[in-house]
């Protein structure tokens, strides 16, 4: 875009415009009739995953690669499909728009299966399970019900927001960009509690130097069943992803990935309460 020493003529402009249109046409995806076939033809699977949400997806401190439970599942799926993996980093609020705008084929980003989301996308069978819990100051009551009218922090675009509005309509939900910001709000008293997946809260508390000042309430706010998101009307891709997930459970890879991130001795340690492909 530097100014050209040659004066621009109409012919230059016309050829530039023609080039732009050719570029646009070349990049436009053919109406995705069968995404599975398209993925295989392109040789690349594009997956939306978190870059700021350990242990699901975050930047490794020494290699600077994206790592996490979701990243390992994305890798295993791409490998089973025999294609290259392209991870697209995202945050909770952007993951569904990324799928809708055709920038990715799968969302593997701690996405809870909900009826609202199922209206705009399809879900695979569950590959993770957790529960929403409240993190509160140590001096607070242990009863979940005593927070029915409290000010509660949640992360934007997560089910915490909806679950609180449904379960405690009298509460005031304040949405933050990420979990450290929500914790800062709890520290300075802007909120009385934060709602988040139990696994994430356990990891947060394990690292906090002032962890003695907080506690996680024993009762769960909701059960969160996590699935892989994909575009509606893609039966071949959906069936293939489900088949791969069941295969990963059968050959032990799924459990190995779980143990790597949530097994005993890890920061997010928590027993595995599910088996992929088995409804409970």
């Amino acid at each position: 875009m530097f100014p050209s020493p040659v004066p621009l003529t109409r012919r230059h402009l016309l050829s530039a415009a023609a080039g732009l249109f050719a570029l646009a046409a070349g990049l436009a995806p053919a109406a995705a009739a069968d995404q599975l076939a398209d993925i295989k033809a392109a040789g690349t699977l594009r997956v939306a995953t978190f870059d700021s949400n350990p242990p699901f997806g975050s930047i490794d401190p020494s290699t600077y690669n994206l790592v996490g439970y979701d990243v390992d599942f994305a890798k295993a799926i791409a490998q089973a499909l025999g294609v290259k993996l392209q991870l697209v980093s995202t945050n909770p609020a952007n993951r569904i728009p990324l799928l809708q705008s055709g920038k990715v084929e799968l969302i593997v980003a701690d996405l809870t299966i909900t009826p609202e989301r199922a209206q705009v996308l399809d879900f695979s069978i569950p590959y993770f399970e957790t529960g929403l819990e409240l993190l509160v100051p140590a001096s607070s009551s242990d009863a979940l019900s005593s927070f029915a009218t409290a000010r509660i922090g949640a992360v934007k675009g997560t089910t915490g927001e909806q679950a609180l509005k449904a379960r405690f309509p009298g509460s005031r939900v304040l949405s933050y960009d990420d979990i450290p910001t929500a914790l800062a709000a709890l520290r300075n008293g802007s909120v009385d509690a934060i709602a988040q997946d139990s696994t994430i809260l356990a990891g947060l508390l394990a690292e906090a130097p002032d962890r003695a000042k907080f506690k996680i309430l024993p009762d769960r706010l909701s059960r969160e069943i996590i699935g892989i998101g994909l575009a509606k009307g893609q039966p071949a891709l959906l069936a293939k992803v489900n088949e791969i997930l069941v295969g990963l459970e059968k050959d032990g890879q799924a459990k190995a990935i779980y143990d790597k991130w949530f097994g005993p001795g890890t920061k997010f340690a928590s027993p595995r309460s599910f088996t992929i492909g088995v409804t409970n």
Partner: protein
Amino acid sequence: MPDFSVITQNLPYLLWGRALEGQPGGLLLTLIMSLEAGVLALVVGVLLALAAWLSGGWTRRILFAWADFIRGIPLIFVIFWLYFLLPSLFGVNLPDTITVVLAIAWFTSAAVMYSTLAGLEALPKGQVEAGLSAGFSRTKVLVNILLPQALPNVLPSLVGVFISLIKDTSLAFIVNVPELTTVAGQVNNRTQIYPTEIFLFTGAVYFLLCGALSLTVHLAGGRRARPA
């Protein structure tokens, strides 16, 4: 008590991201994006100003409507639109970094257009008349006589626009393009407990970057304005 070891431990990532793997990030990507968007906005903005100066009537009105349209929308929306709407409406899927650079350049070109046009119109009218009577065309008067005087005059204003542009690149965090603010967020979310240290550092880096630029131009400009 702040513990800045979180900065020293993550310094390479904050400064250049995954540049060694061919994916620049952090401060380096902030600089690259600022330069790309800056050059693009300068060229497009000056061309728009020249077109607005040369044309009258409807062409001029359309140019102003274009600039006012983009100026009247928060930049974060422009980034969102180009990132999500362009692919879903037209199937055009640009790389994430290019999308944000284009959004910032488009947005900033409006400010460049206004500044440059103000500089052109502030010059004495007699210069145009003198040029025309000497046989120059209006385009030649504009490019050879007016623009070389106007650009140095509006330089301080353009530097201000560019400083805003540098800070605007931080909005790329909303679509996870790994410039300085995004990588600072990534480190903050992994370490979870050092937001004060991380965002004090990030703020200081932006301040040093913009402050140094401002100071350089101020010193250079001061020398130019001083009588010989």
